[in-house]
């Protein structure tokens, strides 16, 4: 009885062959290897950050359901996904109290305020992330290098920063491949990028595992493959064009694909079913818009990384896309062909 599907009553109505919580659970399975690798490369701090965000999300969801006198919806696993995703986008030594704030805001602001699962017009984890970015810009861009020797013997002091206090940064900090390129014009070996031997946020470093997770979900008919495919393709083609024009000024398309949060965003965030368009063509337009924005922000914007903003803008555009591209048969399933 707990397995009953959610009371979704906004468009888009997604008819699935499979119930929501089964899909959600599988998304979590697909993310677990990434999370495990994050712990392996960044140590205990990474584990604590992910546990905190997940805990904060689940707790907030539970309390808000209780407040509005509804049946608790934590059993549908969606809060866990939000929490884990948010954790994966944070830097390893991120103060836990900030991670907690992010988790609470992701659910309260990104999901509950809009009417819960099925109505969230933006991806909740991204809202948590973007608020944290705006609130604590220094802490969220302080990166610990991967594979430090003492990562399992000590925990970064900033992790246990006293709530509402500024974290003290000690020890090594590294630049992400993107910021190294943007500000100092230093490239990173593509092998390191693919395998995750770079500094960055927890889940964005190992592209191989992200792709594997995505492939699993696509294989099980639980994700719309068009979304990540269209985004990655757009980024590849766009940045490839600029690379061909001037390879000294612009990074190679492979670098663009494998650095930063692009993979994680394209596979796990942009594919949020509620916040993306319904029709296949609409999805391609959506993916194209996100990919183009990523390239524009990365190459000419003020910040090294723009995936988060690009996806949020894509979410905001998706009602427009749906409006412009009417579905041929309204209400057909977009993922499973059953």
């Amino acid at each position: 009885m707990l397995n009953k599907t959610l009371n979704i009553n906004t468009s888009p109505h997604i008819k699935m062959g499979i119930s929501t919580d089964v899909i959600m659970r599988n998304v979590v399975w697909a993310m677990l290897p990434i999370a495990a690798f994050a712990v392996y490369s960044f140590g205990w701090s990474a584990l604590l950050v992910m546990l905190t965000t997940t805990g904060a999300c689940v707790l907030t969801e539970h309390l808000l359901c209780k407040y509005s006198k509804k049946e608790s919806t934590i059993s549908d696993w969606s809060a866990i996904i939000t929490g884990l995703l948010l954790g994966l986008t944070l830097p390893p030594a991120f103060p836990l109290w900030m991670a907690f704030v992010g988790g609470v805001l992701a659910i309260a602001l990104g999901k509950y305020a809009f009417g819960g699962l099925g109505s969230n017009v933006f991806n909740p984890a991204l809202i948590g992330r973007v608020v944290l970015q705006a609130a604590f810009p220094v802490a969220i861009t302080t990166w610990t290098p991967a594979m430090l020797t003492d990562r399992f013997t000590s925990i970064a002091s900033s992790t246990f920063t006293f709530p509402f206090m500024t974290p003290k940064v000690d020890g090594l900090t590294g630049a992400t491949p993107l910021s190294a390129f943007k500000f100092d014009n230093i490239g990173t070996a593509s092998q390191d990028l693919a395998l995750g031997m770079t500094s960055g946020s927890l889940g964005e470093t190992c592209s191989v595992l992200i792709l594997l997770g995505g492939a699993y979900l696509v294989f099980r008919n639980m994700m719309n493959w068009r979304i990540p495919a269209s985004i990655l393709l757009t980024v590849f083609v766009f940045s490839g064009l600029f690379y061909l024009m001037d390879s000294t000024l612009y990074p190679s398309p492979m670098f663009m694909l494998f650095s930063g949060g692009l993979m994680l965003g394209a596979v796990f965030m942009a594919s949020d079913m509620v916040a993306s368009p319904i029709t296949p063509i609409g999805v391609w337009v959506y993916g194209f818009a996100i990919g183009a924005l990523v390239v524009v922000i990365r190459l000419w914007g003020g910040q090294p990384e723009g995936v988060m903003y690009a996806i949020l803008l894509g979410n905001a555009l998706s009602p427009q896309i749906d409006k412009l591209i009417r579905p041929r048969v309204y209400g057909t399933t977009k993922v499973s062909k059953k």
Partner: protein
Amino acid sequence: MSNSKNDNTKTSFWDKLKDSPSTDEFMKGIWKDNPVFVQVLGMCPVLAVTNTAENALAMGLATAFVLLMSNVLVSVLRNFIPKQVRIASYILIIASFVTITDYVIQAISIDLHKSLGAFISLIVVNCLILSRAEAFASKNTIGKSVLDALGMGVGFVFALLCLGGVRELLGNGTLFSYSVFPEGFQEWIIMILPAGGFFTLAIWLIFFNFRNQRKATV
């Protein structure tokens, strides 16, 4: 009050004050009809210059001054202004007082003028002022109009301070530039960004909704 007993003089005095129409005229702007939280008027300045409490206070006072002066003038001239050109005349009057305010603020402090920027001039298009002129001052006596303007003005300043106070406190760790928190407090920079303005106002509105709903259910 003369026939009331000694021990409840005070209460009856307050009752009288509470029931007197002039108090009502004044109080409604502060709470019941608060221009920002209830009527949702004049949003531009409310959001744009409330990143510090000081700016919020200055903006609130400037707006209240323009509101008061234009209410007075509109009320004085209410029988003189023909209906057809009333809006044009109100705008003219308001724009004049805003220009005056602009110069006065420049004379008081260049820095303050710089941090408020073009938003002082934008008081002209604050819907609050025009709506008070049109809805109240053009139909009521000077005394009542003054009370109305004072009430609305105080309500506006109050609302701006609510926003500016919260935003400065969290966003900068200070209140009126005095440090409030112990050393090492982490500022929430989002609060002084534009997005923080939207969020803070939304949270205040949610708070007021929450109160009203609680009242309704009780």
